[in-house]
């Protein structure tokens, strides 16, 4: 395993970069980070739509969320592979398609986290805001969302770990990320699949474990900060395999 790391470690880490495009672990993390950053505002919109009192909007959002949750990510990736070129022209690269699939998928899951965060706020908050004469947009913008989002930070961050794992499916459409890099290394070595894939598993394990640890540290700090105020901390939604 050490010799594989010595010979191919750089490829697993950054792909062909700087001679070629970025790949390997770096691409995995970039994809996951971009997907998180883009899905976050979308998830807030989905969450707001889900709790909207305007029924058609709430229905559409519910349909979106339930559809995505009923489909395997792999199928969403294939859908993206087919749909994104239709929207954006023929020369869209696979990375963008994967990003699209991840954003569509994660916005639904994170939208549910946002919804849970909003619903779990004590209703006295909205009532008090209304009694003070705030309008509905004002209530959401300055009373409900700031509190709900703060409580949701751990769940949203846990979602980053899920995203890192989910990027492994980018391999299917040929994006040069960590799993793909390992697949190529295995193709060159041919005789050591256990070492190569074992190394791949260990890499994901170390990264996701450390990220998860970081998230629980943050969670504890938030719990401590919130324990006096009686606010409900939304439980981390970690149980979501790819």
């Amino acid at each position, binding site marked *: 395993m050490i010799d594989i790391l010595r010979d191919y470690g750089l490829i697993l880490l950054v792909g062909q970069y700087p001679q070629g495009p970025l790949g390997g672990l770096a691409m995995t993390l970039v994809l996951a980070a971009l997907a998180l950053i883009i899905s976050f505002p979308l998830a807030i919109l989905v969450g707001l739509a889900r709790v909207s009192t305007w029924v058609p909007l709430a229905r559409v959002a519910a349909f979106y969320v339930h*559809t995505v*949750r*009923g*489909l*395997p*990510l*792999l*199928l969403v990736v*294939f*859908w993206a592979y*087919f749909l994104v070129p239709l929207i954006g022209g023929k020369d869209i690269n696979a990375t963008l398609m994967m990003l699209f699939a991840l954003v569509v998928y994660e916005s639904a899951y994170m939208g549910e986290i946002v919804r849970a965060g909003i619903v779990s706020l004590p209703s006295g908050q909205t009532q008090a805001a209304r009694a003070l004469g705030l309008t509905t947009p004002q209530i959401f913008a300055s009373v409900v969302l700031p509190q709900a989002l703060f409580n949701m930070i751990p769940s949203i961050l846990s979602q980053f*770990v899920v995203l890192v*794992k*989910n990027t*492994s*499916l980018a*391999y*299917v459409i040929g994006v040069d990320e960590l*799993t793909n890099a390992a697949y190529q290394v*295995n193709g060159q070595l041919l005789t*050591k*699949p*256990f*070492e*190569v*894939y*074992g190394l*791949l*598993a260990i890499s*994901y*394990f170390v*990264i*996701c*474990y450390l990220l*998860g640890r970081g998230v629980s540290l943050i969670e504890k700090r938030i719990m401590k900060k919130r324990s006096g105020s009686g606010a409900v901390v939304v439980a981390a939604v*970690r*149980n*979501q*395999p*790819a």
Partner: protein
Amino acid sequence: MEDLLLARPGYFALLLHGLGITAKLFAVSWVAALVVASLLTAIRATSSKIAQGVIALFVEYHRNVPGLVQIFVWYFGVPQLLPRDWQRWINRNDGEFLMAAIALTLYAAAYMSEDLRSGLRSVSSGQSQAARSLGFTYTQTMRFILLPQALRNALPALVNQTLALFKATSLAMMIGVAELMHAVRQMENETYRTFEAFIVASICYLAISYLLIYAGSVASKRVAMSKR
């Protein structure tokens, strides 16, 4: 009408075959995962620190490594460590299915055992004390008193895991198991009717997902009624 993808000769049969393999893979892994998860939970509830540590590591591995990579490790990697005759036996006996089933079983079992563990924690300690004072052994207490109640408490979480496992069976396509996604990809490759093929796949997956969710909610209601 005859221009519909599924109306073409052989394609409906292909889809049914894929659905059958998906159902088989899901059923086998689900049952096995529930058994493994129960065992892990029971062992973890003993006071052996070593067993607890090993199981904790097992769970963390499966929580932090993508399902696809786990399937690759089992399909490409593990056979390398086995004796020659075993490798040959695996190759002759549908190794793709076998390895995918093992990987999915362990993957789901790790998540399910976490759910069962929190289910177990919510069973009041008086239950096991009463069982022990009635003369039940540890195994009997686990099997007849604690695990059934843990299962009941963990039911909603287990329904989620069931759905996740069902969706994860699609990953088996990547090592060549001829399941639903594989069948749809084959249709798409042969006809270039991408849109139709993916619509068919989406309808199949959604229908089964909703069926599982419905079954889960029926089970939850029944369990809620049986609760005193």
